[in-house]
């Protein structure tokens, strides 16, 4: 036999390779008890290395993986997304350190799985083929299932993991079936091939199959980004998961799914755009409404943040309708800001819950402003940003997003979004009110003593980033625009 070996460009998947290797190194080093304390720092170092690799490749793409079938491509879009994921992971590691130590889950596997998850997201972001996307998704999901259930003896962690697993696998089933239909319609799973089929002359039958396949994909991706009605897992899982993992879950995995959605839209959906708009806009509005309205009545902080993250997913869905580079760039920008905000919010809870009883409800925050001024200030900044109050990054993100939407001509959607973001202010401010305007309980839930330095570093970093981006958004905006420029 003579098989023509493909020309492979390892360079194109370098960030993913580095990430996977990093995770494996952490895994192996983690086996040695004597390095236990150093594992998180090793993880940080290796994440930084991966970040450097990714930064070095910015602007060099697009480079496909091989000449036979691209499968993955290295372009600015994927690299920027990877950088966001890495940044999220760095912050997660930082807020994990004290939390994991106090709960004896500070094992090499924990950090290794975190980095594996990042590699999975990165694969998703770089994929140009449904199959690599699916495998990346599974790498991410399986790491997350384990991470959520990492606190073996904690019933909540266990329950959260099982719920996420069952529903996640259920959603994977839908994605897979959708892929099968798309394969049947276009004879390939490459985005480009599907786009070609969509663009070309096609019979009604093929059309129906394509639509069905895309619909099923929408179900699966909708699950990942917690779009209504595929959102129901979100609060339960966030509540059950170890807090740093919840932070990671609410940012990274959602961001990854959004990135895929943008890439898919860029290459596959355009032909179908008009037909999808009513459906997606209705679902997006529902998502915003349900997220915001239910968050109003929550007193459990993690559930509150979960509903808030549902609402934010809804906002980010809106510019998809605009079908413009602006719209996509605004989602990327929003994702970056959202990552900093949500990691900050969950991070505060993680740092507070590290020792002693977990900081679970609004009451636990009472008097935080006087007990822990710096931490409360960070939380306040994050809440203002989530609510979209200037001069925070959250405001800029919302502004850019809604202006892209208005530019696209979807004024009604922008108005609805704005209306609900007005509603959301109530529950974000309630957190601030509890911190600053309610006297502390006799015995605060959280343990006295110093908070973890690493955690505080991460939190201050994200708060500063939020403020800095709020005041000087241009560079980041341009980065986001540059990222989506490389999309077809």
């Amino acid at each position: 036999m003579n098989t023509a070996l493909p020309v492979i460009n390892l360079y194109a998947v370098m960030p993913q390779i580095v990430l996977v290797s990093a995770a494996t190194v952490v895994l192996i080093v983690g086996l040695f008890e004597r390095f236990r304390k150093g594992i998180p720092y090793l993880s940080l170092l290796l994440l930084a290395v991966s970040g450097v690799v990714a930064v070095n490749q910015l602007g060099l793409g697009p480079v496909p993986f091989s000449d036979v079938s691209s499968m993955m491509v290295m372009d600015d879009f994927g690299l920027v997304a990877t950088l966001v994921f890495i940044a999220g992971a760095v912050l997660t590691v930082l807020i994990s350190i004290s939390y994991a130590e106090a709960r004896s889950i500070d094992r090499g596997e924990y950090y290794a799985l975190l980095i594996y998850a990042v590699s999975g997201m990165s694969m998703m972001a770089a994929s140009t083929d449904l199959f690599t996307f699916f495998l990346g998704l599974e790498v991410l999901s399986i790491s997350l299932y384990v991470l959520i259930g990492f606190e073996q003896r904690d019933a909540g962690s266990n329950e959260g993991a099982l719920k996420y697993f069952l529903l996640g696998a259920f959603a994977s089933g839908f994605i897979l079936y959708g892929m099968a239909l798309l394969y049947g319609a276009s004879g390939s799973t490459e985005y480009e091939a599907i786009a070609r089929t969509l663009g070309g002359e096609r019979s009604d039958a093929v059309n129906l199959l394509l639509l069905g396949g895309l619909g099923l994909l929408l179900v699966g991706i909708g699950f990942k980004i917690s779009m209504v009605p595929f959102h129901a897992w979100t609060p339960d899982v966030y509540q059950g998961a170890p807090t740093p993992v919840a932070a990671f879950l609410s940012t990274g995995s959602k961001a990854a799914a959004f990135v895929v959605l943008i890439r898919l839209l860029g290459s596959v959906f355009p032909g179908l755009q008009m037909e999808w708009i009513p459906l997606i806009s209705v679902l997006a509005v529902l998502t915003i409404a349900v997220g915001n309205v239910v968050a109003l009545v929550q007193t459990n902080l993690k559930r509150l943040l979960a509903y808030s993250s549902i609402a934010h997913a809804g906002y980010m869905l809106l510019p998809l309708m605009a079908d413009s580079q602006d719209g996509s760039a605004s989602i990327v920008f929003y994702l970056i800001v959202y990552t900093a905000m949500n990691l900050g919010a969950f991070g505060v809870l993680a740092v507070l819950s590290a020792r002693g009883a977990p900081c679970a409800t609004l009451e636990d925050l009472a008097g935080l402003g006087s007990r822990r001024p710096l931490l409360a200030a960070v939380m306040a900044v994050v809440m203002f940003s989530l609510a979209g109050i200037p001069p925070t990054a959250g405001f800029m993100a919302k502004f850019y997003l809604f202006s892209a939407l208005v530019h696209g001509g979807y004024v009604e959607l922008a108005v609805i979004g704005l209306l609900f973001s007005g509603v959301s202010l109530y529950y974000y401010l309630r957190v601030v009110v509890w911190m600053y305007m309610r006297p502390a309980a006799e015995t605060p839930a959280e343990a006295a003593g110093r908070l973890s330095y690493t955690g505080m570093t991460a939190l201050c970093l994200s708060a500063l980033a939020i403020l800095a981006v709020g005041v000087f958004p241009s560079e980041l905006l341009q980065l986001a625009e540059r990222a989506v420029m490389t999309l077809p």
Partner: protein
Amino acid sequence: MELYFFLFFAIVAVASSVAMILQRNPIYCVLLLIMVMISIAGLYLMLDAQFVAIIQIVVYAGAIMVLFLFVIMLLNLSREEGGVFRIQKPLAVLLAALLFLPVAAMVMSYAGGGTTPPADGGGAGFGEVEQIGTLLFTKYLLPVEIAAVLLLIAIVGAVVLTRKGTVSVGE
């Protein structure tokens, strides 16, 4: 003749799967699912997918389902009694039936989508190991590597989750 084979496998698969989701004894459920797997393997053979058929039997029916069986035995699970799903059950069946309509309409209208299957079944060696192996290491190199990572993660994960206690190796 082919049609009878198809009908046979299809009926066995559907009947076993329906029985599986109705059967209260978990052991029987596993056995019924294995029946489904085997009949699907039969269908794969009819579709000239010899390699996949073998994998289906060896990996799916042989390994994965045995894992199920093993866990059920390990946990010593008894029959499942009715639970709280009074409304859920009929609703679920109804929804599944409703969902079947558009999906079936979709695939039935397909009818090849304008393509006709190659008469020789895709040429010599279609679905055989050589062809698949070649593809796996050329076109599908990257997915295979990712799958390898995936398995590694799954192993680590399963170990992490089920390890008793939090005592590390070194202690």
